[in-house]
């Protein structure tokens, strides 16, 4: 089956990202495909390229990146939720006259329409909220 996950919890504040990542590993182990993860609300902080957790703690941003490398999972970030929280890719940073940027590939800024699309085109959509 084709799965999509919706992550709405910030990393290191709520369990949502941990639950979603463990669920992702389990569904892949059962032979399903994780095609899309959509980050919304405070969940967009999962995409911060500058995240630097202590070395003896799970690196959640890297864990999402690994899913993209292994499964080709699309890591979609709601652009409206991201910009107002200071998560900008290079293009948006330039457009808004900001120095530096905080989001990069494989994470992609997209509209919320992509979430609706994921709900329609995937077999299952599971929400992990704070």
């Amino acid at each position, binding site marked *: 089956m084709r*799965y999509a996950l919706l992550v709405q919890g910030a990393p290191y504040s709520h369990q949502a990202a941990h639950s979603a990542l*463990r669920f992702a590993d389990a569904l892949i182990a*059962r032979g399903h495909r994780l095609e899309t993860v959509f980050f919304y609300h405070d969940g967009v902080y999962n995409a911060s390229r500058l995240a630097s957790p202590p070395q003896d703690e799970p690196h959640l941003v890297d864990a999402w990146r690994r899913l993209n490398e292994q499964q080709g999972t699309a890591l979609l970030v709601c652009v409206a939720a991201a910009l107002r929280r200071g998560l900008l890719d290079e293009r948006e940073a330039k457009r808004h006259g900001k120095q530096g940027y905080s989001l990069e590939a494989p994470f992609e800024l997209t509209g919320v329409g992509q979430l609706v699309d994921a709900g329609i085109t995937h077999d*299952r*959509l*599971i*929400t992990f909220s*704070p």
Partner: protein
Amino acid sequence: MLLHLLNRSPASSLVHRDTLRAMGEEDRLLLIEDGVYGALMPLADRFEAIHGRLFALREDLASRGLDGRCDARVTVVDMEGFVTLTEESERTVSWF
């Protein structure tokens, strides 16, 4: 048949009431994260109406030191069991 996910303890939130009200006759409920506190007595009594359709996630019970303390009416599943429940349900609804 829908799978409902609840991540709030019935001791700290009343959202389980909305969940139970919304559940269809065949629907199942999986308690995850802090929701697993609802798998223990006396809180488990709140879910009497969905007897046989109540599940709790083993990993979240274990991480709270609650493994083996579940009420007998609750079916404990691991992460693989969680995936299986989503396979068997047409849609999944999260309550938080």
